[in-house]
């Protein structure tokens, strides 16, 4: 078995069968990361000692007869999730040297069932961005083109899996931060229903939208990771107490009996001829697998972006208030506490974070609250209602995952141009729905020389993860799009 290219399922089976040890997997992974990450830049911190420690524990537990669903599976963790004793930066100068004193629930649940932590991955600062360029701490390259971005905000986690520097990884998705980079990096990226996975230990960007989810090279691997971390957590009051159906053992091979909604308002013809053809082919493939394609309407989806860019900044303006130099993180001294706050936050936050704090502070301020925040909440309710209506006519909704394939560095200097990358993912996030991006082909992007990966977004009703992952698996195994492309950066051995 080639540890670098193996799936999580294969690794866990091999470790369970004792045909390879977790320690051997850890050493192979550490070596691979050392070989490729210089160019890829997926990791901000690697944790080889922690990985070896966990590997030894996994081997001991396997020897003792335990069953561990993720035994020996190397996992990369987005750097906005706390791992005790490990630097957790959120891609920000304000937390550059902050070491987390506790481990978050989602990560802990994966470690408990045998996953091996490789390290912490790069991201747009505080998960605000769609290219990873807003990281204050490093550059991550798209594994399929070193001159292009990996997407974001979970760019490092997508690039690590896409570039074979991790078997699976964790990202967080607020408005598309898992699905868009997954599309860019030729991997599966899955955002569960809001409330399915505990946010305890995930550094908050927008609390009512943030959700942790996996990246993997197969839908099955994403399902395995999801199954291990989903479920009510007493530390997160917003995690839901609805029984989690296992997904990895209920994957489908066809789509017979399913109705797939194609959104009238999301005409792919606007995306250019090649992209249009790519998505039409994807929809046709769904049909070929037995699905019935139906047109659905989401008349309020076009307000998604505006709605999102009020609610998310409003929450972020409050969530990021704790970074004040008083208790942890960066502190720049001042003559008094007020000046200390100002200097610390001026030096610690990058321009996009500052922009969103300002927008959010404005949206919540006296006299503007009703016009902005309250109105956005009403729009959010309407968008969710639109999806609920659409799901009366279909079981799944298919759409592009991102507006374009991966773009070049510094290509989106206008913030709104960057925000538009998430046009298709944001409405789904506002509705709290489970959704994923699965590779659906490749197109040569504007100014590009070779095809770059594309992602198909599938969304389904609240808490229907089994249906969603099952359908995506059927599509993936029938099309095998991911296997048709090979990374050009950090080439595998």
């Amino acid at each position, binding site marked *: 078995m080639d540890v670098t290219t193996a799936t999580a399922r294969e690794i866990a089976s091999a470790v369970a069968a004792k045909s390879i040890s977790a320690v051997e997997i850890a050493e192979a992974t550490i070596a691979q990361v050392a070989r490729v990450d210089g160019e890829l830049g997926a990791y901000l911190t690697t944790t080889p000692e922690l990985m070896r420690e966990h590997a030894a524990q996994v081997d001991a537990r396997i020897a003792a007869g335990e069953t561990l669903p993720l035994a020996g599976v190397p996992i990369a963790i987005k750097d*906005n*999730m*706390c791992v005790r004793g490990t630097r*957790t930066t*959120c891609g920000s100068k304000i*937390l550059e040297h*902050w070491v*987390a*004193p*506790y481990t*978050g629930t989602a990560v802990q649940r994966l470690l408990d069932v045998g996953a091996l932590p490789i390290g912490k991955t790069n991201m747009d600062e505080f998960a605000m961005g769609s290219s990873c360029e807003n990281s204050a701490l490093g550059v991550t390259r798209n594994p399929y083109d070193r001159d292009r971005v990996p997407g974001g905000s979970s760019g490092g986690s997508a690039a690590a899996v896409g570039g074979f520097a991790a078997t699976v990884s964790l990202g967080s998705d607020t408005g598309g931060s898992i699905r868009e980079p997954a599309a860019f990096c030729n991997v599966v990226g899955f955002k569960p229903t809001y409330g399915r996975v505990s*946010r*305890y*230990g*995930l*550094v*908050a960007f*927008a*609390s*009512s939208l943030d959700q942790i989810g996996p990246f993997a090279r197969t839908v099955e691997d994403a399902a395995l990771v999801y199954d291990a971390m989903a479920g009510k957590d*007493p*530390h*997160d*009051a*917003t995690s839901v107490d609805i029984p989690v159906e296992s997904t990895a053992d209920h994957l489908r091979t066809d789509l017979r009996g399913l109705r797939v909604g194609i959104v009238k308002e999301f005409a792919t013809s606007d995306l250019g001829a090649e992209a249009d053809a790519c998505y039409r082919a994807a929809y046709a493939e769904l049909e070929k697998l037995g699905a019935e394609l139906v047109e659905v309407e989401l008349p309020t989806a076009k307000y998604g972006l505006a709605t999102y860019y009020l609610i998310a900044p*409003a*929450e972020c*303006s*409050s969530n990021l*208030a*704790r*970074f*004040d130099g*008083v*208790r*942890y993180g960066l502190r720049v001294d001042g003559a008094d*506490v007020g000046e200390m*706050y100002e200097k610390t936050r001026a030096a610690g936050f990058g321009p996009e974070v500052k922009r969103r704090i300002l927008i959010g*502070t404005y949206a*919540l*301020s*006296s006299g503007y*609250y009703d016009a902005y*925040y309250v109105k956005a909440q009403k729009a959010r309710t309407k968008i969710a209602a639109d999806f609920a209506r659409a799901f009366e006519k279909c079981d799944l909704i298919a759409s592009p995952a991102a507006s374009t394939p991966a773009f070049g560095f510094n290509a989106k200097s206008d913030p709104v141009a960057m925000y538009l990358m998430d046009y298709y993912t944001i409405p789904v996030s506002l509705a709290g729905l489970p959704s994923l991006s699965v590779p659906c082909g490749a197109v040569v992007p504007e100014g590009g020389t070779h095809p770059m990966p594309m992602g198909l977004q599938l969304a389904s009703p609240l808490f229907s993860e089994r249906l969603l992952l099952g359908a995506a698996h059927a599509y993936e195994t029938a099309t095998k799009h991911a296997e048709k492309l090979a990374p050009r950066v950090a080439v595998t051995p």
Partner: protein
Amino acid sequence: MSIAERDVVVTPEIRAKYEVVIGIECHVELKTASKMFCGCRNTFGGEPNTNVCPVCLAMPGALPVPNVLAIEHMMRAGLAFGAAIPAYSKFDRKNYFYPDMPKNYQISQYDMPLTQGGVVRYWLPDGTVREAALTRIHLEEDTGKSTHAGSADGRIAGSTYSLVDFNRAGVPLMECVSEPDLRSADEAVGYLEALKRTFVALGVSDVKMEEGSLRCDANVSVRLRGATEYGTKAEIKNMNSFRSVHRAIESEAERQIAIVESGGRVIQETRGWDEAAGVSHSMRSKEQAHDYRYFPEPDLVPMEITEERIAALRATLPVLPIARFERYTSELGLSVAAAAQLIDGGLADYFDATVSAGAPPAAAANIVLADLSRLANEAGIAVADSHVTPAALAELVALLDAKTINSKIGKDVLARVWRDGGSPKAIVEGEGLAQVSDPSAVAGFVDEVLVAHAQSAADFRAGKENALKFLVGQVMKSSRGKANPVLVEQVLRERLTS
């Protein structure tokens, strides 16, 4: 301070022209095992920053989980005052930066508090019962505590650095807001005392102002008597006892009257009370007020409260202090002071049980507040924890009331029961301690004493009234305390004057 404030002397005549209008905002720390949103202990004090965790330190990624007991305490407090508990309530974030507030927002409640309305009925020292409407009670979390070092007086001005202790951060706190229904410092204190004794009766708070578990701010304004519009209010903070609340309100009323009398205008501001100096200082004006940017707390789900849950909580309410006060003073005929002492001394349950066991209320109140309280104080335990059961005390009171024993014997018997337990009646019967009220038996003791102390008898006859007291004492002694002292004196006088 303006020139006007210094120049106008507020004479009693001027003062009498004005009415003071007061509303009180109280913060009360709830008594729970753990903090409001995390598992840290809810205790007072401790080494700084030892009772903290990622949640109450606002570490990145930490999330709040609400304390159900605190929510129930709140609802019970509301129900005790007849407040409405809405079917739906939620938490909100109150955003402002302060170093001892770890998240730089406080989880509080804005437009949908857990309780709405209600009435606080309270009594004044003369026994008059008044009432003040509650606007609301809402639930929030406490902050940490800052200590400023390097300045002479511990104030932030002139300090070189500050230390923050987060042990208190996240302690559940309820904020009770009254309507501007109070009209004097006495009423304000009466109202606060009513809150305190009600929360103690409910078991929702220790309400210790000295430990900061009760803190209050007063909104004070003045207007000419008969006026219908309110004057401009000032909010007074930093009052650390009921006495200082009283002083601060009096002082503020006088300050505002002086301004109005001199033709000035009271400005809306927040003022800090300086207890030592007996004056308040301006802290900030309305223009400097924060925009708290309240919005619904996205880390917590809204609360849906069923009628069944409210009914179940209502069923746990104890007898409320004001109800007791009215029963004691009207039905039972106790004095205001005795009623207040029984209620505030934690003796009301015991007293009620004693009365239920058949003791006459006035006599029972008397013995509970005097002899029994003294014994309890000396022993350092609660009356209710002693060997003297309410039934035993009722027996003792009955023995005294029927004059089966005199008060001297009563005290001895009480001391015996206090020490060893048992029935006063059995002790009196078993040891023959019943009072001797048979005139011929008493006469026997008297005659013996008159023989033995002939000189004293002669002294009395010669006009020395004091000698009689000595002779009574001797008779009591020879009867081993059992003779009815009233009868003894009567018989002695008969013998000595005949």
